[in-house]
């Protein structure tokens, strides 16, 4: 019995001890929860919020670009991009392996892309495939993303679309912003798509728009449950260009038919608005819109014809005979000659003990300025150049827009060169020899011009001396209708005596409409004025001696404006290795015909066929059996 009582007492004591222990344990638990839930609540609340809320970027579509009539030149389409969200990727290697397999792309390539973005903040997804094919999108979404490919995101993004691959150098292309650009412009952030050339680059700030954002609730595997708030993206501003789709199309068709490389710039000679612009060979800007692949990029950059080079504003070429108007005008305005000044051409002439040939061996006989332009008589302009001197020629050529930048709203314009004594002293540290002036008189020697400056030159002659600034932007829509953008200020106005200028214009009119070399550009009733030019790429002697396979055929120019007395269009067609200036005139004819047909409300001429252009492939200076001179087409 004693044991039993002792037992009971012990049980009671030990149970009481347990009671206390348990009460203490529960008190500790309660205090712990109080600390977690009340004291540290703010911290954990924030962590819970970060857990289940995500901010997704909503890409703003870039502004749509219209031509002067409201026709769409550049627009957007929807594409799908596939990216990896590192914050939700537990095993990056596995994800890369699986994703590469699912997408059917190279695993090493995916790894390279991921590595390239490794230093960026992890909340920013890494885009693996831009513009994924529907098959790829389907393949990815068919997987149970939650389990097999966590952290792989398929997004719909607006992507640039160039409906017709025309004017590639004009519109330019877009691409992911690079580090240097981010460093310069604080409004840009890594991953943004920005204009990398052309209009896309120059007006990037207007075209870009503002990305929006969407705050969403996601579950533990990243599936969106609902949207908390949405800040819609703001589309970029819509731009209207001075470009005329039909003129642009005519230019492209003309070059397609001519099958030459080269460039063309056509503009309104009064306000400088560019109507059409091309550089050949071209490229497809759509290839850039969704991230250009390495192969295409390499092909573009290593192509010997340099398709990314914008010949219209970056190519510098001898103007040849198209320079003669500048020489003539210098003579007139400096009071050294009059339009009636006659020179006798015997097919060649001697200056400073050297014989200079006219292109016409038998000579032109005696002719005045008008006829000298019409016939493009070299001896006449040798003579005038010699009388005027290189510095006066430089002065007037510059005033007309040559050897200076045009100021066109495109990036990386090159500047041409019109030599002067000062230039030679400064650059070559040599005295100018009077004999050098003779070659300058016919646009050879050191003279080099860009096609766009030739267009300005013709516009200046056409409009009576105003050196307009070529430009493309006509109007901007900031969301409340089109607001016209005034044309940029002209680069200067020169005083030219109208009668003297008229002599030049008459000569140009005769080139096309009388017995000159530009007859192919003639359009009845529209008084086209123009001038061909055939410029050597290399001296005849040098060409004969050359052993390289390089194309050394002459370049062909045609510069023009029309109508002569009330100009509405001015421009230049430049055919690289086009052999003869008149070949360029054939291309210009289609452009002019289209322009005037549109103006007169007549049906457009059909796109020319190659044979319609009646191109002249006879190369008088070709070496026998030289592969390049054979005119292979």
């Amino acid at each position, binding site marked *: 019995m004693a044991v039993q009582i002792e037992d*009971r007492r012990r049980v009671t004591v030990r149970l009481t001890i*347990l009671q206390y222990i348990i009460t203490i344990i*529960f008190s500790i638990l309660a205090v*712990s929860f109080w600390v977690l*839930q009340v004291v540290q*609540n703010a911290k954990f609340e924030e*962590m819970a919020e970060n857990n*289940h809320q995500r901010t997704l970027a909503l890409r703003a579509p870039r502004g749509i670009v219209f031509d002067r009539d409201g026709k769409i030149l550049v627009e957007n389409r929807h594409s799908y991009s596939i990216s990896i969200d590192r914050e939700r990727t537990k095993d990056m290697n596995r994800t890369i392996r699986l994703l590469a397999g699912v997408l059917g792309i190279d695993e090493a390539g995916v790894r390279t892309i991921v590595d390239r973005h490794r230093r960026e903040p992890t909340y920013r997804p890494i885009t693996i495939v831009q513009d994924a094919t529907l098959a790829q999108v389907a393949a990815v979404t068919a997987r149970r993303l939650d389990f097999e490919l966590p952290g792989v995101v398929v997004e719909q993004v607006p992507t640039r679309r160039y409906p017709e691959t025309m004017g590639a150098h004009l519109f330019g292309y877009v691409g992911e912003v690079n580090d240097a650009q981010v460093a310069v412009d604080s409004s840009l952030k890594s991953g943004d798509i920005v204009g990398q050339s052309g209009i896309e680059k120059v007006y990037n700030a207007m075209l870009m728009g503002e990305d929006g954002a969407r705050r969403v609730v996601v579950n533990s595997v990243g599936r969106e*449950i609902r949207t908390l708030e949405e800040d819609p993206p703001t589309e970029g501003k819509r731009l209207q260009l001075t470009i005329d789709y039909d003129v642009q199309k005519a230019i492209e068709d003309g070059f397609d038919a001519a099958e030459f490389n080269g460039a063309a710039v056509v503009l309104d000679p009064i306000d400088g608005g560019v109507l059409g612009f091309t550089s050949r060979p071209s490229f497809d800007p759509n290839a850039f819109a969704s991230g250009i692949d390495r192969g295409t990029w390499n092909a573009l950059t290593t192509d010997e014809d340099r398709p990314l080079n914008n010949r219209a504003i970056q190519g510098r070429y001898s103007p040849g005979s198209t320079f003669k108007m500048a020489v003539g005008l210098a003579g007139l305005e400096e009071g050294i000659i009059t339009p009636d000044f006659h020179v006798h051409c015997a097919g060649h002439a001697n200056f400073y003990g050297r014989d200079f040939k006219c292109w016409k061996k038998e000579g032109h006989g005696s002719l005045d300025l008008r006829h000298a332009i019409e016939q493009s008589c070299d001896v006449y302009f040798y003579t005038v150049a010699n009388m005027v001197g290189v510095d006066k020629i430089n002065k007037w050529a510059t005033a007309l827009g040559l050897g200076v930048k045009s100021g066109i709203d495109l990036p990386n314009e090159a500047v041409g060169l019109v030599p002067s004594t000062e230039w030679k002293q400064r650059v070559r540290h040599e005295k100018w020899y009077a004999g050098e002036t003779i070659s300058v008189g016919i646009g050879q020697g050191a003279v080099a011009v860009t096609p766009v400056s030739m267009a300005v030159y013709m516009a200046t002659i056409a409009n009576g001396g105003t050196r307009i600034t070529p430009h493309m932007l006509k109007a901007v829509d900031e969301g409340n209708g089109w607001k016209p953008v005034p044309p940029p200020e002209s680069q200067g106005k020169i005083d030219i005596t109208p009668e003297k200028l008229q002599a030049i214009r008459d000569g140009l009119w005769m080139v096309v409409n009388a017995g000159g070399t530009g007859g192919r550009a003639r359009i009845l009733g529209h008084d086209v004025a123009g001038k061909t030019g055939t410029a050597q790429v290399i001296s005849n002697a040098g060409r004969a001696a050359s052993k390289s396979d390089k194309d050394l055929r002459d370049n062909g120019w045609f510069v023009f404006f029309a109508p002569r007395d009330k100009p509405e269009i001015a421009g230049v067609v430049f055919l690289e290795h086009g052999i003869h200036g008149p070949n360029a005139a054939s291309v210009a004819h289609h452009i002019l015909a289209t322009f005037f047909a549109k103006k007169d409300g007549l049906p457009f001429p059909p796109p020319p066929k190659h044979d319609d252009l009646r191109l002249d492939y006879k190369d008088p200076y070709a070496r026998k059996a030289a592969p390049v001179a054979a005119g292979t087409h």
Partner: protein
Amino acid sequence: MFERRLYYHIDWGLLAAVLALCGLGVVMIYSTTSDPTRGVSRMYITQLYAIAIGLGAMVFTLTLDYRTFTDKSHLIYVGLCAALLYVLFFGMVQMGARRWIPLRVFNLQPSEFAKLGVALVLAKFFGENRGAPMWTDLAIGGVLTLVPLALIAKEPDLGTAVTLIPVFLAIAYLAGMRMRILGVLALCFVLAAPIAWKFALKDYQKSRISTFIDPSQDAKGAGYQQIQARITVGSGGLKGKGFKQGTQGQLRFLPVAHNDFIFSVLAEEQGFAGVLVALGLYLFVILRALEAARLAKDRLGSYLVLGVLASFTFQVVYNITMSAGLAPVKGLTLPLMSYGGSSMIATLAGFGLVLNVRMRRFTN
């Protein structure tokens, strides 16, 4: 057998608290499993069925005199060990462990009932002795505990296996085991821990413990659950986010929210206030059961009550600590609240025994 007057001695307070906890569990299960994106889940219904069956089991363990059970405890014990052996060879595999016997309606988990079996057999064994247990008694009791423990650990289900240890310790303690021996056992445990770490624990178990010490070392892996548990509880605040409004549980940042982490969900949605209510209910149940142990007519009854209570209390304390991210994550459910049929039935049956002992304190 069941005399009418016994009815008046049922501890209705304890029963009410137990049922309140069951109800709380069902509500929380409903909240976490009725994810609209996954369709309406039937889990809370299943849980209600389990409670109903559990109450049936409770009536059964209540009606017969508890001595009837202890007298048959050796048979029950052998039967349970057989069932555990059966599971080991023929059981159903789920989530990498062989724990279940598939029945037509639900899967039976014999290990949950092993706790009761061990409590019965140990109560009987120590209850027959007088005075403080000898070394030999402790050894025999220890072996009786270790056999089912080893079988369960082999499934593997280390969590449930470990809950048998408190049963043995509690009964031995109440039976008068010298505190010195308890000290020696504690010392052995401390010494054995490194050996166990090296040989006995599996890698995932090791990683759970090491990430407990520093959860951030593996924030996406094993430490994830612990971090998420702490966020879940901490973000609940004083009043909670509201029924079905918890982001952590609802959006499945917290794994097995309806099961191991049901208390975290309660803490998130009902806040510190809800936590206090639940803690209070559990404390009430435990203290009330201890009271039953104290009031018991004989040592057998006291030991039985404490044996049943030991694994219950251990699991409650461990699970709640774990659900706040304050203990390594282990697959231990919260008795009465977590989703799970076998656990519910076994726990309610256990409380039947507790009520049984208290109610029969005046009978002979």
